[in-house]
Every structure is written in C-alpha cells, then in structure tokens.
C-alpha cells in the first residue's frame, strides 16, 4: 500500500498544547512540510513572536530564538544579515504583527529582507485571553470590546497582506485560510511558495493565515470554521496580492 500522508520529519512527535479547534498546529505542520520539502531543517531558524506561537521550539525540530513582542522581523533581520544562506522565518499573531510590531514588519518588508513572515490572523489576542486585536472584525465582541468593535472608537480591521503588497520590497504576499481541507492544501502551496522565494533570494515573503480561536471566540470548533467562512472571508479575501517573478536587483 502506498503511504500518502505522514507526519513531517521536522515536526516533533508530541502533543500540541493548543486548544481544540485552534489552527496553530496546522500552521506548524505546513511549515514543517515546507522545511522537509526543501530539505532545509538544518539551516532554518524560527523566530516566534509573543503569543500562543511562542512555543514553536516545543514542536519544530529547528533552532529557535525568541523575540520581544512584535520585534521578530527586526530580530530576523539581524539573523539574516549575519547568515544570508540560512532560512529565517518569523511566526507572529495579530497583536504581535498588526499592532505592537507594525513598524518592524513594514520596514522589514520595505527593506526587502529576504525572510519569510508567517502571520496567524485569528481576530483576537489569543494568549492574553481574547482581547481586541487590530484584525478584530467590526461588531465582534472581545474582552476589551464588550459592546462589539465600533469603527468610531476602535477603527477598522487591518488587512495586512494587501497593505504589505503595496511595498516594493515585498516579493510575495498572500492570504490563505485553514477552515477546510481544500483550503489547507492551498495554504500548503503558499508556504512552499514563500520558502521558495526566500531560497531564490527574491526578497520578503508573507503568508497570512485566517485561523480560528474557538476558546476566545466562545465557539466550538465547528462553529468556528463556519464563522471563518461566513464572517472572516468576506472582509479578508483570500488570494495572492503580490508575486514577484524575478528579484528586483535583476
């Protein structure tokens, strides 16, 4: 019998600490599949931001360096400039990347740093207990928007992939979702593409994942994936917003 699916080698054989229905585990696996595919485990360095993703080192069999909240792209810049032959990626959530780390990600992208940024957009601050994030949808109730997010006081949800795609330094920017198996397959391709871009020295690559946080949404996993389809996707369209075919120095 032919084996069609197996746990990636780069993924440590252990139980995730993530809540039921959370998509962090899926994102971890997709990164590991890309690491296996390009055979770069021994030269990959992961830089998680602060949040549920910080325990990257418990799950992926690679070198890992923690970064202060939001600063992962700057830390990654330091790494990549010293080790240009290594594969460097950051792993960041909504607050980390879209709020406190907005400056670092924008300028890292604008410099065209040849790194990959993995952005997990689940509409809330997960680890701290479900506070409003820059990505929280209008009307969405969180622990700090108990009456629902109101644009008059809280502004609008930020579309990071589209915004970064406007920068010249960006080689690849896309948004994928993880709410169905078919979407996970597409997301896998996007992660491969991002790693491929980095290995070809094309510049900054960015993959935004729509994902669920059932615990902080107060939903079960099934309700959560339905919410992703019905509420997140209309505001956060899936697609590739920028894809460079040649490095800009050519």
């Amino acid at each position, binding site marked *: 019998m032919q084996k069609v699916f197996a746990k990636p080698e780069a993924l440590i054989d252990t139980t995730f600490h993530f809540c039921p229905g959370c998509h962090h585990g899926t994102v971890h696996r997709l990164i590991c599949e890309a690491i296996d595919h390009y055979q770069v*485990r*021994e030269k990959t360095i992961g830089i998680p931001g602060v949040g549920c993703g910080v325990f990257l080192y418990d799950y992926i069999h690679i*070198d890992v360096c*923690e970064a202060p909240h939001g600063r992962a792209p*700057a*830390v990654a810049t*330091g*790494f990549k400039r010293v*080790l240009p032959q*290594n594969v460097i990626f950051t792993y960041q959530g909504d607050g980390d990347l879209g709020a406190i780390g907005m400056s670092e990600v924008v300028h890292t992208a604008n410099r065209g740093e040849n790194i990959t940024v993995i952005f997990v957009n689940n509409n809330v601050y997960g680890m701290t207990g479900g506070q409003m994030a820059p990505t929280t949808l209008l009307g969405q109730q969180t622990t700090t928007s108990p009456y629902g997010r109101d644009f008059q006081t809280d502004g609008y949800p930020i579309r990071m992939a589209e915004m970064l795609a406007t920068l010249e330094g960006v080689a690849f920017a896309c948004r994928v979702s993880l709410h169905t198996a078919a979407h996970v397959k597409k997301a896998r391709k996007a992660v491969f593409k991002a790693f491929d871009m980095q290995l070809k020295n094309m510049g900054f690559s960015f993959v935004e994942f729509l994902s669920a946080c059932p615990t902080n949404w107060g939903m079960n996993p099934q309700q959560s994936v339905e919410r992703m389809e019905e509420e997140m996707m209309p505001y956060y369209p899936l697609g590739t917003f920028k894809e460079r075919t040649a490095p800009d120095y050519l």
Partner: protein
Amino acid sequence: MRERIMMRGSVALAEGALMAGCHYYFGYPITPQNDIPEYFSQRLPQQGGIFIQAESEVASINMLLGAAAAGARAMSSSSGPGISLMQEGLSYMAGSELPGLVVNITRIGPGLGGIAPSQGDYWQATRGGGHGDYRLIVLAPNSVQEMYDLTIKAFELSDKYRNPAMILGDAILGQMKEPVRLSDPKIQHLDKPWALRGARGRGPQLIKSLYLKDGEMEKHNWHLQEKYRKLQDADTLVEAELEDAMDILVVSFGSCSRIVQSAVRLARGKGIRVGMIRPISLFPFPGKTIYEATQTVKKVLTVEMNTGQMWDDVRLSLSPGCQARLMARPGGGIPSPLEILEEIENFVKAGDHVAKSVC
C-alpha cells in the same frame, strides 16, 4: 609600537569596534552621536560588513539581538531618548544571555532635553535600565584613547559573560580630538557554541528568556546574579591615584574626571593632599577600592555632571565615619577646574562637624 594619530572620539570608538571584529552595526540617527553611524556607513561596506539604518532604536536593538544570537559581534549606538527605547531589547538580551555593545553618547534629560554633555544616564546604565533583575556591563572612557581601548574591552567582556555591554560617553568624548595609538592587541574571541546557525550536526538549540515552570525563573535570576558577582571579582576597572595621609578623596568618572584631574593638580600645587578614584567600569562599580581608600581618608567629594547619581554608589562604598560631599552640575553645566578646586579647598577647611552629608 604604532605611532599616535589625531582622532575624534567617535571615530576612535568605531575603529576600536572594527579592531574587535565587529562587522555589524544597526542604528538610528540622533544627536549627538550621528558621527558614529555616519562613520560606520562609510567604513563597514569597505570591510565586507553590514550597516543598517533601522526605522527606530527599537528595531536597532532587536537587529542587534538577532545578529548576536547568530554569533556575530555587533553593536548599536544612540543617545538618551534612543537608549530609553532600547531598554526592552536590552532586558531581553540580558535575560537571553546575549552579548552585544550599545554606545550611549548621553544627552541631557529628562525628555527631549538637550544635546550638551551630561552624565544624567548613569542610573539608567548601571541599574539595568529595563525591566527585571539584570545589569549591563558599563564602561566609561575619559579620553579618545579609551574610546578605542574600552570599546575592544567591552566586546570581550560582553562575550565572556554573555551579557550586553554599554559604553557610556557624552558629546565631549565623542567630539574631542586627541592623539590615539591604535594598538593591535590580541583580541579575545571565544567560541560561541550556544549561537544559532541552524541545527546542522547537532540537535536544535534555543535562545529564550521565557521560563514559566515553577522555580525556573528564580533559578535563572540567581544564575545571572552569580555572573555579575564573577564580573565584579574579575573585571572591575578603576584608576586610583592615592597618596599617604590624604586630606581628601575625589571621585569622578568619564569626561568630568578630566576636569577633576586638572583641579587635583592645582590643589596639589597648593599643598593639599588629594587622592582621586576614577571608576572606569561603572558596573561593576569599584566600591572595594573606595572602601579601602576611605579606611584612612575621611572626606570624599564626588563630582559629576548630573544631580548626584554615582554619588549613590560612592556612599554605599564608604568606610564608616566618612563625610561625603557632592558637587553636581546637571543639565549641561560643566564645572571648571577652578570651581572644583574651590570646592576641594572648602571641604578640606571645613570642620568635621559641618559636613553636608555624613555617612
């Protein structure tokens, strides 16, 4: 022995960094330290090094963190407000036990303050500056030669103790020109098996400052304190000019100590027996040297260009029964040698009972 050449302090500092093997500089413009990044932006590409003008000091310090974690000698420089922005990253570096050099060409604070020479960042530099129980290795040059020598020393100590180091200077030291001998010392380079360069031929490694398990963080904190104790024992730097039967001891650091040296010469010319102690490492502070000297001399004058920050450390170091006085000039005020001489003379003449502060 190499010949001496005239050089500006900031240039000597940069050349010291290059001599130490630092090929990575990350920084953001702020007066009065701009000639450091400007010099590196010209010099590093010639050396095959990397210069990045970051989007902020917050980014600079985190680029430094990344480069250090990758095993490189790297540095940043800034001034007061920019150094304040770096405190988060410095705390993470100390917690993660990463080396690296940050230069503070101090401005006057608080706030936007002013750009004239000041020593008002002593507390921030020597107390850690950011959150948590940690210290920086802080060296305070007082000449252009030391801008060169102590930069090299700072990289070596930083690697040795896996802790960020700081050079605390000011615009006087950055801008003044003096003859320098660009010696070519045997630079210490330690292996960095902890550095992250990819898990090739070994298991994955981790650099972190997060410890959530019961008791882990307490253990980590005591480990850091043990490093600081070793640093104190082995690598405290101080210049002490003591004599027998001193009437008075003067303590001063950095640019201010140069003025004090002139005042001390004038006082000695008048027959006053003056001793002088200049802390070169502000952390670790040479408290032991001060304690031993004050077994005999009982009048101690501290002169500094702030409201009396090092004075705290001096008073903690005195032998019992000393009288401690402070001559403080905050806000860009620079004392003249004659003003300091007058202070020395008044203190020597004053009766034991009229000291402003008795420890």
